[in-house]
Structure formats: C-alpha cells, structure tokens
C-alpha cells in the first residue's frame, strides 16, 4: 500500500494508542529509532562477548571463579572451555555483522532520514517497514536463544563453513540446536533486510518531493540507495544457502557434504555435496555485506564533512560514481575470501586483479574527502571529529586490504590476525565511527536535545586511540603468523612474539569498552536533560533541518519544494554561509546559478 503525496495543507495525527504509536508503528521515524535501539542492545551483547574473548587471549591459563558462577558450563571449574571460546567468536561476529553493522546505519539512520531528506512523509510501504523491523527483532531473539539451548551457542564461526556447520552435534557442542537457531535467525534477518531494501528503493525512486532531482539528493541518500541495491541482490543468496544448509542438517539432503566423511570413527550418511558451494554462496553475499556495513558510513561522513567544513562536497558526481563502482565491484570479488579454499587457482588470479581495482574508487573517495577539507573553515563538533576519524580508519583499513587481495601474500596471511585487524578497522570500527558521527549529528533532530559535546569529545579521542591500539598490533601478530580463532597459542614456539602482544591488546580493548560507558551515559542523560535543539543547530542545508526537532508526525506541514543542491556552503555573495535546499531560487547569487 503506497502512501501518495498528500494534499498541500494537511494536519495528520499520529495513532492515539501507545502500541500503534510506539511499538507496532508504521511511522518511519519510530521504526528508525527502533532499529537504532536494537543495534545498541546488540552492540552491548557483542562487546561483552569480545571482552570475554580478550580475557582468554591475554590469560590463557587464567581461572575466573566469578565468571564460573554466571557461565556454568562455559567456565566449568573457573576455566574457559575451548568450545565456549569458539562460540564467543561465532556469536560476536554474527551479532556485530548482522545486528549492529547492518541494522544501525541502514535500518536506523536510513529509515529515519532517507524519507525526510528527499521530502517524503513516510516510506513507500509503511506496513512493510514495520514488518521488516519486527522480523529483524524476532531474528535477534532467535540468535540470543542459541545461548540457552542444549550444547550452547554454535561454534562454526560467523561464516558457518560446512561440513562443520552441517553435521550436527557430532562435530562439536553447539553444532546441534544452537546451529539450527543460528541459521533460522540469519534467514529471518535476510527476510527483514529484503523488505527494508525494497522499501528504500521504492521510496528513493518514487517519493521525492518537487525539485528533488537525483542530482540534488544528499550523498547519504545515494549511499542508502546503493546499500539497498546491494542488500536486495545479496541477501536472497544467503537466505537460499541457509535454507539448503538447514535441509542438509535436518532433512537428509547433501548440498554441502561430500561422500565418505568419517567423524569420530562414525561414517556420515551423505554424498554428492560440495563444501566449496557454501563458500561461493556465502561470500557472494558476504562481500557485498562488507559494503552494506560501510557505505552508509561513507554517506554520513561525506555529509558531515561538508557541513562542518562549511564547503561543498568535493566532486559530488564522482562520489556517487565511486559509491556505485564500489557496490558493483563488490559483487565480483567474493573469491578473494577463498584463495586457499581449494578453488581453481587460475580463478583466484582473476578475483585478485578485480579486488585490487576496488582500490580505485576507494582512493577517489579519500581524495575527495581531503579535497572537501582543503580550504575549509572546520568546526570541530563531536560529529565532525568522528567523521574525520572515519576517514583515517578507512585509509588504514583499506590499505591493509592491498596485502590480502594478493593471492601470493595470502598464502601466508590468510586466516591470521592480519585479517582480523584489517576487517575490524574497515568494516568494524570505521563503520562504527560512521554511526557515532551520525548519532552525534542527528541526535538533536531525533530527540530534540543535544548530546553533551564535552563528554562527546573525550569519548572520541579515547575511542580513536583505543581502537588503533587494539587493531594495529593485530596486523603485527598476523605477520608473525598467529592464526585467528585460537583458544590458546602458547604451545607454538614461533608465535612467542605474537603472544606477548595479547596482553597489551586486551588492556586496550577493555579500556576502550569502558570508555563507551561515557557514550551511553551521554545518551541517557541528554535524552532527558540535554540542552534543547533548535530547527537547524548545525546550520546545515538538507531537508531534515527545516523542521522542528524532533520532527512532527509525517514530517512536513506542507510539501517542501527544493531549489538547490545539498552542499551549497560558503557561496560567495550569499547572505549567510549556507543556502538551504528549500531557500528560494534567488538565495543563490546570480553568478552561481546553474
């Protein structure tokens, strides 16, 4: 059911019941906040899991009587069990990738701001939007339930490679009921994301207000749009693969399991499948997923850099082109996750060459961000600091990809901590910096109150130093050859220099996690007590800033008419240093009209 543009004068009322207004809401802003809240809940779980992993890595022989009281089987006798460690790895990865990195930037900020930024009153399909959130929420409950079933949480890694993921509890605790729940959760998540993606595309293409041509859309909208295309094309493949895996496990099919397997002396009754098939399907989704996590961060960064540099974005069209190029190339490089898988080595060469070409649009983005800052009058708000941090992390995490994209270097570095350091910098921390930037930037609009800037800045500086202290040394550990997903590496003599770094990383990780308390306190305190935000506290140009904070139900009292591009800052001869998109045409000095 599409909501068409309403008549120009219109006084919509929100539903009066609490449930329809705040729980089962079809209002894109409420749904955006629900997604954002879900991501915060999920990040708390994911962070806790990583803290437990870091304890084990720094103190492989440690005993933890207190933890044994909470995790009775995981810490039986006060010592962390190896299977518990692997389940932490698995659940940390799954929860972070799906329920944080995919939900907050896209479902959260995208839902809230995409319709507003294009001048729409809601998403194209509000009921579908509501459904997409609730399906995702149920998916989250299902993955959390995996902790509590017999055998505990799954231990197949977030990539769930078969046969380990296909054979049930015979290959390890957690691979029984826990693994089934993992697959069901991911399949549900795929359904939710598909509904969301469809909505984003229909809304962007069909619901733009008068004057909002494609060439006047903010880069945030372009980023969400590109992300939605990626989600629409990649999630169905993961869902299909997940269903096949579920059938292999429970219905006796053999898509991923070959003949002749013997586990713990027992013959496995499967034949004809291929473990590599799963890897192809998984990474056909998995690589675009990396961009699903990071593209919205790029959009937010572009937006925020321009606002607080008080300059137009450098190379607007090139930035859109680069978004599309990264998204498109992202579908042709999945094989770089599989150089060592046994895949045809000639194919690996093709994947390697394609992978390194992604460096080209990525470099273009970096150039243009620095170009945007060149000649700027930078205002160092917390949002701006996080956007600048994003650029730094994007450069660091992007460049280390140059090692891993090469077949020959991957012979040594594949599945080592170098990989862990690389992807955490780029798709983990950079993406999270994008979310922090978005939160500090949009919180005043979403909740009508400012976050505390002083606390925000302390939060930023400590987090920036913290994340580099965690993930840079991991590259060194990888160079020493330390494999990832190791419960304990102390029996390997050649890994001595890498082991010595674990304690430092753990201290950095626990400190950085503690620093996040500042952020949560800031959120809670400012939500109730922060200074009131006006309509346009940042003196920005896009449509969300023409309305009260928080925005009224259905956003616009009258449909806005757009006359200007999204990045008209510091136009010579203009009255102020920014021209809002809805300002009358003559706000633009005659010499600069196009």
């Amino acid at each position, binding site marked *: 059911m599409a909501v068409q543009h309403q008549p120009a004068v219109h006084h919509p009322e929100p539903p009066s019941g609490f449930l329809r207004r705040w729980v089962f809401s079809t209002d894109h802003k409420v749904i955006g906040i629900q997604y954002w809240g879900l991501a915060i809940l999920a990040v708390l779980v994911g962070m806790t899991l990583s803290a437990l992993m870091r304890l084990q890595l720094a103190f492989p022989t440690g005993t933890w009587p207190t933890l044994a009281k909470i995790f009775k089987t995981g810490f039986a006798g006060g010592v962390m069990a190896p299977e518990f460690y692997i389940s932490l790895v698995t659940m940390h990865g799954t929860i972070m990738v799906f329920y944080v990195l995919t939900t907050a930037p896209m479902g959260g900020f995208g839902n809230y701001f995409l319709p507003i930024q294009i001048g729409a009153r809601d998403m194209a399909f509000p009921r579908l939007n509501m459904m997409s959130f609730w399906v995702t929420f149920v998916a989250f409950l299902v993955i959390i339930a995996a902790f509590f079933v017999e055998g505990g949480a799954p231990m197949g890694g977030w990539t769930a490679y078969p046969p380990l993921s296909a054979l049930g509890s015979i290959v*390890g605790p957690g691979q029984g009921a826990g693994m089934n729940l993992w697959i069901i959760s991911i399949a549900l998540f795929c359904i939710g994301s598909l509904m969301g993606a469809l909505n984003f595309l229909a809304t962007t293409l069909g619901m733009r207000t008068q004057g909002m041509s494609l060439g006047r859309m903010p880069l945030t909208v372009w980023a969400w749009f590109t992300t939605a295309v990626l989600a629409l094309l990649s999630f169905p493949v993961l869902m299909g693969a997940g269903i096949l895996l579920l059938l292999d496990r429970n219905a006796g099919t053999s898509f991923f399991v070959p003949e002749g397997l013997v*586990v713990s002396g027992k013959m496995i009754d499967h034949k004809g499948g291929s473990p590599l098939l799963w890897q192809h399907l998984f990474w056909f989704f998995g690589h675009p997923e990396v961009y699903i996590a990071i593209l919205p961060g790029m959009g937010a960064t572009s937006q925020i850099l321009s606002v607080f540099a008080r300059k137009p974005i450098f190379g607007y069209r090139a930035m859109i082109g680069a978004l599309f190029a990264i998204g498109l190339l992202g579908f042709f490089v999945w094989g770089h996750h599989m150089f060592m*898988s046994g895949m045809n080595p000639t194919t690996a060469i093709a994947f390697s*060459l394609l992978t390194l070409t992604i460096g080209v649009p990525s470099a273009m983005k970096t150039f243009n961000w620095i170009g945007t800052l060149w000649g700027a009058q930078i205002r160092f708000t917390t949002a701006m600091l996080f956007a600048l941090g994003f650029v730094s992390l994007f450069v660091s995490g992007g460049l280390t990809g140059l090692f891993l994209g090469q077949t020959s270097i991957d012979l040594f570095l594949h599945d080592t901590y170098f990989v862990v350091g690389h992807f955490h910098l780029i798709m983990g921390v950079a993406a999270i910096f994008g979310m922090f930037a978005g939160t500090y930037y949009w919180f005043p609009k979403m909740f009508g109150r400012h976050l505390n800037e002083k606390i925000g800045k302390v939060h930023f500086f400590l987090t920036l130093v913290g994340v580099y202290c965690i993930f840079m040394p991991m590259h060194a550990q990888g160079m020493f050859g330390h494999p990832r997903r190791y419960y304990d590496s102390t029996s390997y003599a050649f890994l001595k220099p890498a082991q010595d770094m674990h304690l430092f990383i753990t201290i950095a990780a626990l400190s950085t996690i503690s620093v996040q308390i500042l952020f949560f306190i800031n959120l809670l305190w400012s939500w109730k007590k922060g200074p009131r935000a006006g309509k346009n506290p940042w003196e920005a140009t896009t449509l969300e800033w023409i309305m009260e904070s928080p925005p009224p139900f259905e956003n616009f009292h009258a449909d806005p008419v757009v006359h200007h591009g999204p990045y008209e800052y510091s136009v010579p001869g203009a009255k102020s240093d920014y021209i809002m998109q809805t300002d009358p045409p003559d706000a633009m000095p005659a010499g600069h009209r196009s």
Partner: protein
Amino acid sequence: MGPLLAILIWGITLWSVIITARANGGMPHRISDAANQINAQFFTTLVVVAIAFVLAQGLLGWVILRYRGRAGQRASYNHGNQLVEVGGTAVVGVVFVILAILGQRVWANLHLGAANPNAVAIEITGEQFAWNIRYPGPDGVFGRTMPALYDAISNPVGLDPKDAAGLDDIVTLNTLAVPVNQPVELRLGSKDVLHSFFLPNLWIKQDTVPGMRIPLRFTAREAGDYELLCAELCGLGHYRMKGALRVLPADQYAAWLVETKGP
C-alpha cells in the same frame, strides 16, 4: 581541537609504521625459495602501502591543522576539480594494478606449473584434531583407501588390505618428515570437516577439504625442526591441531622412513 587531532593522527601513523617495521623483522624464518619470493612481494607491498599510508594520514592531519575555522571567515567555494580527481585516482589505480599483477607470479609458480615427476609424494589427511601423514613406501605407489575401513588405532587412513600397493605404505601421525633440497608434492585431504594445512616457515597454507585431494608443492632448503598447525576453524580443538615438520638430510630421511615403518 584541530591541533590535538592532527598530532594524534600523525602520532598513530608513526607508531603504526614502527610496530609494523619491527614485526617485519620478526616474521617466521624462511626455508624455501617460494617463501623468499612471497616475502619479497610482501615487502614491496609493505613499502607501497607505507608510502600511501603516511601520505594520506599526513595530509589528513595537515588539512585538519591548516583549515581550522576562524570566526567570521568563509571557506573557499568549489565543487571539485576533475583534473585532481581523475589524475590522482589514475595514479593510484596504476600502482595497485601493477602490484596485483606482480603478486600473481609466485602464485602461478606454486599452483599452475607442471607437476615435477621426481617430487616426493606425501599424502596428508586432516581430522579433528590431528594430521594423518602417509608415504607411498618403496614402490612409490599409494595403496587404495576406503573410508569404511577407517579405524582410529589400527588403520587411521583406511588402507585396503586387498591392495598390494598399500602393503608398504608408511602411515604416521602429526610428524611430516621431508628430505632437504628435494621437491615435495603434498596431496591434501580431510576425513571430516575443513582444516587448513599451515607451514609458517614455508609461508604457505592450503585448506584441506573432504572429498578433494589438493596438491601443494614446496622444496625445503634448510634442515631442521619446524612447526605445523591448522589455520581453518575445525572445532573446539582447532588450536591444538599441532604437528611437526622435520626437514632431514637425505640419509637421515631414509632412516626415518625405515624407522617409522617399523617391523
């Protein structure tokens, strides 16, 4: 705020370069020509990345420091410069693609060359959580195996007693002995789940996949005892799927085979 952030970014950059340079000196000792070639490619990439890293972070710090806002002043107004965008991106593109092409040589040598008929053939079969290692014995032919015959103690690789070629096969656990300076061709497989066969001193790894036999070649140039480990998550004992690589002079290797075969 600007100076603090700029100095921090430069400081992090310097620190990253230092720890990476130090790690570069501590990478596993290399005992093959291929390892040296991989290392050379790694080092070339390290230099290129270090230059790009320092330039990009340095520039980022500089613009943050240089373009701090001052009250009442307006920023410069421009929407971009195609020459800078296209030119800069083209340079990066050319460097990256050259790097990618250079990086394929070692890979092609390792995986695409013709098999050496004189290579010492050894079969590796991973299982949770050990490495079964099989030599063809004096006849140079591996005997037939059948999964149905697997027995953890008496027949770990499932040798078929009806096949005469298998009678002299030598089967051992977790210790891979190879002769120094002789080409070796491993045939990697797995009984149960994925594993990855990782020899850090040869700088190579290869997943072992049930249902497949994947070749992996190397020539070890330096006798000694080295470590062997699993690099693909295979279950709760993944971290302790440890083995040993013994690179032996020819005579000691021959003696080791006889001794391992037993009576």
